C-alpha cells in the first residue's frame, strides 16, 4: 500500500509543482510581514499573551447559552399570565356574631380560625357545619 501511495504522491507532486512554488512565495511574504518579537519582555519574564484579550469579544457558546437562559427567564417573568387577584380577607367575627348571622341566613361563608373543639350548628345557612372554639359552644 505504501509503495503504491508513494507512486501516486510522486505523480501528484509533479503536477503540484507550480502550486508548491506559489506556496513558498506566500510563505516568504508571510515571513516578511512578521511582527516584532518582544525581546525585552521575554528576557524579563513579563511576556503577556495578546490574543486572549481579543478572544473575549468572540462568540462563546457557554456565554451565549447563559445569556439565552437569562433572557428566556426574563421574558417568562414579563409575559406570564396575570395571576388572579387575591380575595379580600373575610371579616372576623366572634362566635356569637357568627351564630347570629348564620341563623339570620346572612352568611355565605364561614372561616373558622380556632379548631380546638367541635359543635354542630343547625342552620338554614349554606354552611351546614362549623368548627368552633371549645367552651364557646
Amino acid at each position, binding site marked *: 500500500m505504501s509503495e503504491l501511495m508513494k507512486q501516486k504522491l510522486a505523480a501528484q507532486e509533479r503536477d503540484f509543482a507550480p502550486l*508548491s512554488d*506559489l506556496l513558498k512565495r*506566500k510563505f516568504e511574504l508571510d*515571513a516578511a510581514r*512578521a511582527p516584532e518579537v518582544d525581546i525585552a519582555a*521575554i528576557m524579563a519574564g513579563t511576556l503577556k499573551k495578546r490574543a486572549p484579550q481579543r478572544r473575549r469579544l468572540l*462568540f462563546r457558546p457557554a456565554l451565549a447559552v447563559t445569556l439565552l437562559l437569562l433572557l428566556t427567564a426574563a421574558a417568562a417573568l414579563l409575559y406570564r399570565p396575570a395571576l388572579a387577584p387575591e380575595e379580600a380577607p373575610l371579616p372576623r367575627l366572634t362566635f356569637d356574631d357568627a351564630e347570629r348571622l348564620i341563623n339570620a341566613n346572612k352568611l355565605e361563608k364561614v372561616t373558622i380560625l380556632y379548631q380546638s373543639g367541635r359543635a354542630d350548628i343547625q342552620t338554614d345557612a349554606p354552611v351546614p357545619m362549623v368548627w368552633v372554639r371549645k367552651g364557646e359552644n
Partner: protein
Amino acid sequence: MDSSTFDRLVKETKGWVFATAYHILRSRAEAEDVMQETFLALYTHYDTLDSKEAVYRWLKTVAVNKSLNATKRNVFVELEDFVAERVFSTPDDGGERSVYADQMMERLQEGLDKLSPEHRAILLMREIEGLSYEDIAAKMDCGIGTVMSRLFYARQNIRKFLERKNT
C-alpha cells in the same frame, strides 16, 4: 543567553517562525502569540541546545507543535483577524506582483483555510521545508501512511478548490 545572541537569533528566525504559525493557524493574532511563546521557550531551553543547527531544528518543531496546540485551545475564528485579512489587506511588496499572481495568492489563501491545521502542517513540512515522509511522521507523531494520505488529500483539495475558482 546574553541579550545580543538572543536578539540575533530572533532576527534570523522570526520570519519563518511567524510564517509557520500563520500557515497553520490562519490568524495573525494567534500566530503572533505562538511566535512570542516559541521565542520565550527558546530563551528558557537555549542552554540545552548544543549547536546552531539544533536551535533551528528545535525552533521549527516547537513552532509547529505550538501552532497545532493553539488550534486545539481556540477553535473560533477571530472576527477581528478575519476582517483585517479579507477586507483591509493590501499587497505590501511594492506593487511588483501581477494582478494574476495576487488573485492566485488570494485563492491559495482561501484553499488553505479549507484544510485542517494538521493537513496544513504536513503541507508546510513537505512543500516548504522539504522534509521526508519519515521525518514528518516523526515530527507529527503519526504513521507514514497517515502522512501520505494527509498530504495527498491536502494537495488534491487545494487543486480542486483552485480549479473550481478558475471555472
